[in-house]
């Protein structure tokens, strides 16, 4: 559930095409889930405290499994979004309740906070790879359908706890006074989550929609982030100061996003160094801030609820702020790039009749892509048999695709820059937090 958005993000391009919607529309597949999670996490945690975490987790997982099934069976965007909202309700109940159960399982609240934070960072980083592989090898529906057995499997051990609660009636209903949430840590968490959402969401869209990679291809590329996150997690124990880890993490994330905003070419390898920074950064900052938000605060479920709320609110803010910017930019860049490409065709030395034929095919490709950045290669097939014409057409194809690729890459730059700014803004609450070190 903590990885949901990063798993689903790889399926968005396919959902976008199959459900005949817009980029802004398909964004709500993510926004709806994160919005409901942000709103429901804290109330769900209170409910878990009242009815017992075992029962709350079991019910939450059952709701999550049922809604996941509905998501997988959806053939319209509205039903998918509605199912996503229900899924988030179940998810909020389950994850906050599980956090309440964790200390008993792992031995201490401190250890529970670390496990919880690591699970969040790992989920965010591993999600795209899982999402890409499932989307391409099976379908976008499989992402949701796979969540059904996973949720059921998670519910099995929890059912025993729920039965025990029901049998003994031993519930700790609000025995301890709930302390105030760590405002600065949660605020920073929201800002960093917005930046990380930008990184994952925009990079995946750039790779698939902009550069024409397959979902698996994109998943392989963005796997650089979790691998780098592993490196970042090694740095955690070496630096005990949570403030230093959080600040360094936010800077790494912003630096990586800055690099993505300034990609010199439409070249996959050039995304690797920025992703390394983002991966190291997300591992450092998410774990440091989550541990800080939970440390010394009880009950864990309530404060865990606040961290979930902050993270998902950040994702919502990031997506809602960035989507209109990059959809506008991509439309403008697409038009400019196509004009520039047409100029290349018109000024080329191929014969006028061939130009007309090519122009017709290029127009067909653009119309077929319905506002997305077109893959122009097939418009040039079959290649002319005459060697001179063939060479001229190949050169043309390369120039035209280069114009489109660079246009698409540039269209994402302002959004990546905004993401970098959000990451840097997180340094303000991190700096303001009086008591941050654990």
């Amino acid at each position: 559930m903590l990885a949901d958005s990063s798993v689903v993000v790889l399926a968005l391009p396919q959902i976008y095409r199959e459900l005949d919607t817009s980029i802004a529309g398909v964004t709500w597949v993510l926004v709806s889930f994160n919005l409901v999670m942000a709103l429901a996490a804290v109330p769900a945690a209170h409910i878990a405290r009242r009815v017992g975490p075992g029962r709350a987790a079991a019910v939450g997982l059952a709701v999550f499994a049922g809604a996941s099934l509905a998501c997988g069976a959806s053939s319209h965007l509205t039903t998918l979004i509605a199912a996503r909202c229900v899924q988030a309700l179940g998810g909020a109940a389950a994850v906050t309740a599980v956090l309440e159960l964790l200390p008993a399982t792992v031995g201490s609240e401190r250890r529970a906070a670390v496990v919880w934070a690591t699970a969040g960072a790992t989920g965010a980083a591993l999600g795209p790879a899982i999402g890409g592989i499932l989307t391409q090898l099976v379908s976008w529906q499989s992402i949701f359908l796979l969540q059904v057995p996973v949720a059921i499997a998670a519910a099995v051990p929890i059912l025993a706890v729920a039965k025990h609660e029901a049998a003994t009636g031993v519930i700790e209903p609000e025995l301890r006074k709930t302390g105030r949430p760590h405002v600065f840590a949660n605020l920073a968490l929201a800002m960093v989550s917005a930046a990380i959402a930008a990184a994952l969401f925009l990079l995946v869209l750039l790779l698939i929609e902009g550069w024409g990679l397959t979902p698996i291809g994109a998943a392989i590329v963005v796997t650089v982030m979790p691998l780098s996150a592993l490196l970042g997690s090694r740095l955690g124990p070496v630096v005990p100061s949570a403030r230093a880890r959080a600040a360094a993490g936010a800077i790494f994330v912003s630096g990586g996003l800055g690099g993505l905003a300034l990609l010199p070419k439409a070249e996959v390898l050039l995304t690797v160094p920025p992703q390394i920074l983002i991966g190291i950064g997300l591992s450092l900052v998410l774990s440091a801030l989550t541990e800080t938000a939970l440390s010394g605060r009880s009950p864990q479920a309530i404060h865990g609820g606040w961290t979930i709320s902050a993270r998902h609110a950040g994702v919502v803010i990031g997506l809602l702020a960035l989507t209109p910017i990059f959809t506008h930019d991509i439309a403008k860049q697409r038009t400019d790039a196509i004009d520039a490409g047409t100029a290349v065709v018109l000024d080329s030395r191929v014969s006028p009749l061939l130009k007309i034929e090519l122009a017709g095919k290029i127009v067909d490709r653009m119309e077929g892509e319905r506002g997305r950045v077109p893959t122009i290669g097939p418009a040039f097939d079959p290649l002319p048999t005459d060697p001179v014409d063939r060479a001229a057409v190949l050169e043309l194809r390369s120039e035209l695709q280069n114009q489109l690729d660079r246009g698409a890459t540039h269209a994402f730059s302002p959004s990546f820059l905004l993401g970098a700014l959000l990451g840097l803004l997180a340094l303000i609450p991190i700096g303001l937090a009086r008591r941050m070190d654990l």
Partner: protein
Amino acid sequence: MSAESRGKLLVGGAVVASLLLVVAYLAAGGASYTPTKTQDPCKHRPWRNPQGIAEIAQQFTLSALDGAACQLGVSRETLARALATPAARERFMDRYGINDAKLAKAIRAGLVRAVDDAENAGALSPFLAVPLRETVQHIPLDEAIELIQDGRSLLENAQSFLGPAGGLIEQFLP
């Protein structure tokens, strides 16, 4: 090394790594991208040493597109794509609120400009330019579109447009 020093080192490392990446990408041209600007179609575009009928036809087509696009207030590239297929033409006319008459007038004006440019470039004799200019001003829309797409057909099939005078075309072409 103390815990505090390790923290400072980590933050410093993050700053240095981020700056290095950003500076490296800037140096490699990361912020330099601007899409190739399309030229104003109303501005004269010099012909590039036309040699032979194929090259003249190319230049003729481009001049005609420029002239028509200038009349319609769109770019040459937009008009070229609009004329690529009948469906694209319909969408273009809907989008810009252009009817058949307006499109025909613009395309004829484009063809006249192409004849002018060809004459000015020395690619077309004035003896041929005058009747051609007169002819293209009265041809139907579909034929005008065909001509704007391929000037070669006009130049090669001048016989059908110009009647007996067309036989002289080869004499007047360089």
